[in-house]
């Protein structure tokens, strides 16, 4: 069984701060990590490898040169192969263009049974790339996958809903997007780290390798544009209540009563 996992390197948004003077995002010194949902997706793929003998897991990313570190991490966790799409042509793409480039690379790779993506990347936050890859490849998709079983080419999938989940029957080839519940990502092993440098290879593919027109990827190909961006306005100063606990709570109740909120 051939499994592809789409992985993205993202800034660890938990630690991204706003520059109070310039009002811009401070990205210097912010560590880059494997997107959390993608780590769950990779875990879903590696769990298949644990269970069945014939599973090959390839991780695929599109991104700048430093994304290589993340690919090594994926290899050290247990992925078999890694492909790195890299080139200026890809830069600045929206999800239309991003999914187009990734789908072209997958077509180039040939056969596959399951493609995993994360539900969403924590920087762009759109959750669009997975379904758009599936559409370009003409295969079916199930998003928000929290659990699945596979028997031959048939899958039984649990898809999370806001108030529960649905059980879906489907067949390969298919694209699944992973959420946290799919599985706690495993750690890298020492042997895994060693092998990721010595035994395994990262293939770097440039734009020319894909055999598509250069108006199909990157900023040029993107229907959407970021028109402007800004830092959200902090709310006006609130009131800190003072006094003993009894006084504070009583002041609060009075204030809410006077505003007719309770």
């Amino acid at each position, binding site marked *: 069984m051939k499994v592809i996992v789409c992985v993205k390197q993202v800034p660890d*948004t938990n630690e*991204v*701060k*706003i520059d109070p003077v310039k009002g811009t*995002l401070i990205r210097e010194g912010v560590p880059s990590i494997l997107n959390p949902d993608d780590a769950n997706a990779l875990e879903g793929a590696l769990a298949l490898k644990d269970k069945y003998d014939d599973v090959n897991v390839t991780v695929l990313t599109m991104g700048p040169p430093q994304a290589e570190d993340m690919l090594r991490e994926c290899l050290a966790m247990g992925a078999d192969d890694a492909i790195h799409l890299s080139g200026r042509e890809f830069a600045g793409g929206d*999800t*239309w263009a991003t999914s187009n480039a990734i789908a072209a690379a997958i077509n180039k790779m040939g056969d596959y049974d399951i493609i995993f993506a994360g539900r969403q990347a*924590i920087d*762009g*936050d*759109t959750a*669009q790339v*997975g*379904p*758009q890859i599936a*559409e370009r490849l003409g295969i*079916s*998709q*199930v*998003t928000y996958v929290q659990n699945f079983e596979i028997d031959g080419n048939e899958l039984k999938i649990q*898809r999370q*809903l*806001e*108030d*529960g*989940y*649905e*059980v*879906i*029957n489907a*067949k390969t080839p298919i694209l699944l997007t992973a959420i946290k519940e799919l599985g706690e990502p495993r750690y890298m092993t020492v042997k895994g780290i060693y092998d990721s440098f010595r035994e395994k290879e990262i293939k770097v593919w440039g734009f020319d390798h894909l055999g598509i027109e250069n108006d*199909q990827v990157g900023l040029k*190909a993107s*229907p*959407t*544009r*970021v*028109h*402007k*961006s*800004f*830092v*959200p306005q902090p*709310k006006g100063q*609130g*009131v*800190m*209540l003072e006094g003993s*606990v*009894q006084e*504070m*709570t*009583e002041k*609060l*109740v*009075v204030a*809410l*009563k006077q505003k007719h*909120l*309770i």
Partner: protein
Amino acid sequence: MPIVKDLSSYKNVWVFAEQRQGKIMPVSIELLGEGRKLATETGSELCAILLGYNTEDMAKELIAYGADKVYVADNALLENFTTDAYTKVISDAIYEVKPEIVLMGATHIGRDLAPRVAARVDTGLTADCTQLEIDPEDKKILQTRPAFGGNIMATIVCQGHRPQMSTVRPGVMSKAEMDESRKGEVIALDIKLAKEDVRTEVVEIVKEAKELVSLTDADVIVAGGKGLGKAEGFELLKQLADKMGGVVGASRATVDEGWIDHSHQVGQTGTTVKPTIYIACGISGAIQHIAGMQSSDIIIAINKNASAPIFDVADYGIVGDLYEVVPKLMEALDKGEDLVNALKTA
């Protein structure tokens, strides 16, 4: 390059009317409220597109909430959402009728469907918008959304492609008013769908929690964070919530601890809420939490640590141990009228 289209042939605002088990989802009513505003500003009609089975009553409801036209696809294959069937029917309708703007709720269904449709009809899609406006100059829609976990807001435009598509975060826009006397037109779509087109089969829908609906509809939310220290802490918050006619919310840290179900989670990866009163007890106020509750009318923060970031968004802050503050707050609520009267006579 996606094909740039003749923009002038695209007209009207469409709202995808998401239904589950024959009920229109609240976000669709919010989209009709917002869609009416956009339709007025672009001088066009507000339309709903409804897919399902036995849809007659739902179509009437959409008209009562303001749809001028309801495009209906009524078919047993459309009873439950599947990506394949819904994408095909909606894309066919978009090719045929050419809407200028298409809005969908950013629910687990909308976020599955919208990117698939946008890729098929070759257009741009803006995710999880929290504000939509029409540019007075060129009448394009300005779509504003949070990214980087709420650290940055970006306004996105869709240049040469149509329709302009957005998913909209549930709970952010104001609901349309219901008026049963409204008139509208119901138009049956010609459905070209065969069973083989649908490659996934929904075999079961399992409901796990009923609180969720009330979380987005609640006027009062009493939310607990890691500061509760233990799962049992939520029982105290439940008492306060019951007293105020509200429901219990939670931070992700407590969900991760297994103290409470995910359906209670407020925030970027949980539910976005907009109650009249939000009481944050033992919640530090991480950006991902704030992203989901900052448009509450009144935010009250109870936290031991006076420099917790939650106080930056709070209208009223109480520094203290929630296990002391919450019981006292319940006492004060019981005395409510007396406290106000005492103030008047004093």
